């Protein structure tokens, strides 16, 4: 089991960082989904704010470009009434030669309560939570090709809201599994929530070695891979994969693995289609499918804010409990000394 699980929880089993669903139990993931469900309503209210993070400082640390994830995190923090600072680190401190460690220590000195971190290195959020800022809640907004837990969980929220229970579902994840941090966390979350049939579809060049050990089946053929499935998750294909010899061309990829209306007919009639976005129309998905009735792509975006509000409020609450426990311990120790 990943050592992340210990890192993510307080002694009492409450969430204090959210780095990956791996190692968390079903109860915790269901609590995240339940909390997110309650926040979906907030977005529909006239006044969209709740005071859960009032007086707390949330710093968005984006070491890698992102528009959509960054803006949904910012919106989520604001709806929780937090003070939000968004730093595009790529163009600031680290380009002056400051190490990640030093950048973070400086930000910690500013009494931040939560860091939302996106970084191109796998394990970056884990590193920060473990070695740099044990008393700042870390929310992983994507680390290398390792994890993107809030995306995976908002996908779970989408599936649960539209399909109900996970146990009977067949889920296909199609495309660039190798470079996808989303796919890895989707697999962890689906397994933990009880899904038994998880199929990965793609050519061998995009299928990482030993992925079967995560309890999934692999399929090179799209038609048989998505046949009879309830959920099809399409992954974004980066155009640089063609230049680096993973694939010959976007055209050939679309012909073999693109989700078209005809292909979608292989899945169950009520199957839902998901995509973490941004989508490449005509490369991994046909417009008619992306905009069609089975598509959940825009619903996912809305759920993303609710889901992020949920994990931010839960991690902050866990972190506060831990700080209180530490403070109590310190005062009882100093009391003992006095006695």
């Amino acid at each position, binding site marked *: 089991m990943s050592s992340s699980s210990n890192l993510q929880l307080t002694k009492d089993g409450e969430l204090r960082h959210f780095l990956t669903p791996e190692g968390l139990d079903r109860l915790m993931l269901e609590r995240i989904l339940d909390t997110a469900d309650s926040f979906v309503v907030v977005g529909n209210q006239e006044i969209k704010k709740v005071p859960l993070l009032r007086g707390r400082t949330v710093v968005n640390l984006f070491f890698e470009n992102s528009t959509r994830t960054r803006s949904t995190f910012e919106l989520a923090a604001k709806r929780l009434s937090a003070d939000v600072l968004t730093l595009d680190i790529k163009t600031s401190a680290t380009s002056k030669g400051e190490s*990640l460690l030093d950048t973070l220590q400086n930000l910690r000195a500013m009494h931040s309560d939560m860091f939302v971190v996106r970084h191109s290195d796998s*394990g970056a959020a884990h590193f920060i939570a*473990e*070695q740099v800022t044990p008393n700042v809640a870390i929310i992983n907004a994507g680390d*290398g090709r390792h994890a993107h837990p809030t995306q995976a969980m908002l996908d779970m929220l989408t599936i649960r809201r539209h399909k109900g229970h996970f146990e009977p579902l067949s889920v296909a994840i199609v495309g660039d599994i190798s470079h996808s941090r989303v796919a*890895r966390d989707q697999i962890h979350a689906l397994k933990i929530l009880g899904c038994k049939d998880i199929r990965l579809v793609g050519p061998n060049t995009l299928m990482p070695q030993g992925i079967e050990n*995560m309890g999934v089946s692999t399929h090179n053929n799209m038609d048989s891979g998505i046949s009879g499935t309830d959920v099809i998750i399409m992954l974004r294909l980066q155009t640089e994969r063609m230049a680096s010899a993973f694939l010959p061309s976007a055209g050939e990829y679309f012909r073999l693995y693109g989700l078209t209306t005809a292909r979608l007919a292989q899945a169950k009639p009520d199957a839902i289609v998901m995509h973490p976005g941004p989508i490449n129309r005509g490369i991994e998905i046909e417009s008619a499918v992306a905009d069609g009735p089975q598509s959940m792509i825009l619903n996912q975006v809305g759920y993303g804010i609710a889901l992020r509000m949920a994990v931010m409020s839960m991690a902050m609450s866990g972190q506060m409990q831990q700080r209180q426990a530490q403070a109590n311990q310190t005062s009882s120790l100093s009391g003992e000394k006095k006695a």
Partner: protein
Amino acid sequence: MKIMIRGARLLDPNQALDRVADVLIKDGVIDTIGDLSNTSIDTQVDIQVDAKGMILSPSFVDLNTCLRDLNQIQKGTIASETHAAASAGFTHLCPSPDTQPCSDSSSVISLIKSKVEGAGFCDILPVAALTKGLKGAALSNMESLSGAGCMGFSNAGYDISDNTVLLRCYEYAATFGLKVLVQAQDEKLGSGHMHAGPTATRMGLDGIPVIAETLSISRHLELMQHTGVEGHFNQLSSAKGVALIRQAKAQGIKVTADAGIAHLCFTDAKIEGYCSQYHVQPPLREELDRKALVAGIKDGTIDAICSAHQPHESAAKCAPFAATASGMAVYDMLVPLMQILVDAGELTWMHAIQALSTNSASIAKHKASSLAVGNSANLTLIDPNHHWILNEVTKISQGTNQALASQTLKARVKLTIKQGLISYAL
């Protein structure tokens, strides 16, 4: 100087020696071996050690180590790292040429040698760069460097992708009967950060597949066979790599190989949680690979065990995994790691000494030390039952990248003797 070591278990694979006896060292050589309990020599010796329960063997020769220094004193100095080597039982070291500046000229070699001599802990049999600047383009002055005392030539961790250059390197080395040492890993396939397998996939780290090693071994073996150059492979990491060496030896190719102690003891599972202390090159692989390496030592396919010691400062390991430097500071852990293998019944101390001393000396073209009367006294005394904690106080290497830091370890070197003089004493 006279040193008396009483009651140790003498192990010397050279002469299949395994017995308990007293050893008297006088004027740099082994003077007497036997039962000296009744002699009145005690009053005349400078140092007497009660070594009951300890193991006395010929001293160790390290075929792969990094001593840092020069432009890398933040990682270690020749004084600190040769001291650490002596504390691990080594008297002779073959430092890798990837120094800064790199060991491709007689002047750098003589600077390193003079610093090692000044420190006085070990002797060195340097490995020089195979190509100038380790750039894989132009041949180094191999014959001159050999004359300056270099035991062999290597391009360290820098793969020479141009077969024409590699062929000429080997032809030239063969002309003068020089040895080449290879760290076999294809540059492009080896660009990841850990072994390619389920763990790397789950953790989202770029993997280095086994074929990065096997393709490289096969290519080098072909060229070695073609040119007749004497070749040695440093730091094998995979079961398939061991099989290729076994096959080559069976075909009569002049080749030897070593494995690093870390690869004999650890697997990629240690990286779980992004533990950068286990970020090494070549990468730690799976249990079946580790077992094959141990089996290779046992059946002689792998001749030697090296330290692959690479000390780093703490900042080098304090970053997200992929951004950390590879390498482990091994000297402080080497004997305890060996003891773990012995206690697990995987190897015996006789295997260990054969691989750390007898065979590595022969590969380094150094006259192997032997526990025989009249021989120069290069000896290592190990207390296999000594329990200790590896920490800031007990460690000797300047490197802070000891994977087993803060742990209680078993076994420790009690005494290292180089040419009759004590180079390390606990």
